[in-house]
């Protein structure tokens, strides 16, 4: 069982250092809430400037996805204490999921786009 002294109390690569684990939990909560508020605000306003596309997705959607990954990182690292686990455990969990999921998403989205083209360029209309 993790000893109280075993917790790493720094986040943002040492930019913020907390005095106790409890304090770190509240700090991370504030950060996660801020990120969620930014997401909801962007989703509500939907600034036109973010409507341009990059690699098949709008800037806005890229921002949402990146912010989601940021949130996922802090939930895993600080709430699930991945920060305090040995690197072997960390890699076994994180690398496995990151590589498999990236592959899965890439292949399915490419396939979805292909089928979209097939429907769109088909000799018959599907909108009837």
């Amino acid at each position, binding site marked *: 069982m993790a*000893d109280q002294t075993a917790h790493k109390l720094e986040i943002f690569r040492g930019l913020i250092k907390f005095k106790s684990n409890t304090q770190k939990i509240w700090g991370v909560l504030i950060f996660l809430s801020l990120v969620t508020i930014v997401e909801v605000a962007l989703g509500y306003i939907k600034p036109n400037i973010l409507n341009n596309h990059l690699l098949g997705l709008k800037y806005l959607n890229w921002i949402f996805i990146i912010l989601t990954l940021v949130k996922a990182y802090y939930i895993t690292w600080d709430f699930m204490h991945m920060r305090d686990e040995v690197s072997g455990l960390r890699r076994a969990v994180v690398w496995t999921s990151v590589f498999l999921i990236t592959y899965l998403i890439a292949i399915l989205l490419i396939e979805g786009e292909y089928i979209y083209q097939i429907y769109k360029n088909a000799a018959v209309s*599907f909108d*009837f």
Partner: protein
Amino acid sequence: MDTTVATTGTEGQVWGGGNEPLGASYGKLMMWFFILSDALTFSGFLAAYGFSRFKFIEEWPIADEVFNHFPFMHGTDAPMFYVALMTFILIGSSVTMVLAVDAGHYMNRKKVAFYLLLTIIGGLVFVGSQAWEWKNFINGEYGAVKTKGGKVLQFVDANGKRIALDAFVTVGARDVANQGNSEGIWFETSTVTTATYTLDEVKEAFANRSDLKIRTQVLTLNEKTGASEKTILSREASLAKLETDGVSVVEGANLVENEYGAPLFADFFFFITGFHGFHVFSGVIFNMIVFFNVLIGTYERRGSYEMVEKVGLYWHFVDLVWVFVFTFFYLV
């Protein structure tokens, strides 16, 4: 400390899994394995959702129009605020969970129990919220007409805002013959009874209101803003489309039809949020079991609150999944 956690009986036995190469106990490691496999399951679902969305990229429903309800604010357009609230509730219950784990490290039984109780309440509020969200989605708000090709035609007023069937269609005569207990059925009728209105009533009402138009599922690019918007047909095209293609009236959403657009959207919504809601529900059950064990002092006697840590991992994982569901169903 580790050797006092008498849970698996393998302590010190190298080939029985007794030593801990990853510095985590057997139970915690197994929980991580489970979480990893569950994460892959959820990503499979979400990737399948992405696949279908890319396949119907030009006609996918706009989430802001589907989920725009807020309790006690009937009729106001409040996109996303309710799910944002649900997100805060779940993150909040994650925090109380991690505080319970922390209190467990200090062997503080009262604090562990208190924080676990808060976590359970948060989880129950979340599941309830999800049920409410489902209710709104299933009931629908405006109603639409389904075409032969399975697409959906929605009605908009002169300002391009959606108008509910209730606002302009009137219920006509129904040849309902009421039956009773002796016949074994409630009633008999020749009209379709799956919706409030029949297609003919909608057609007639639509023809009488010259300001109404039809909005199709197709998304077109607004050149000025760069945003994707649903296509609104001209009045003549609307009349023709309704006459030639309409087959039935759709109200709300279920697994076969969806008044907001592609039925697949409803299928994935029910399946993924349902599967996630089931995880929250089972997490609440686990938390309750651990909560009562804390109360009767099981972990006090065991000398370790590691069980709280293990269900805590599961609970945080449920929160983690919600973060992704929130993004891909409501934001993107």
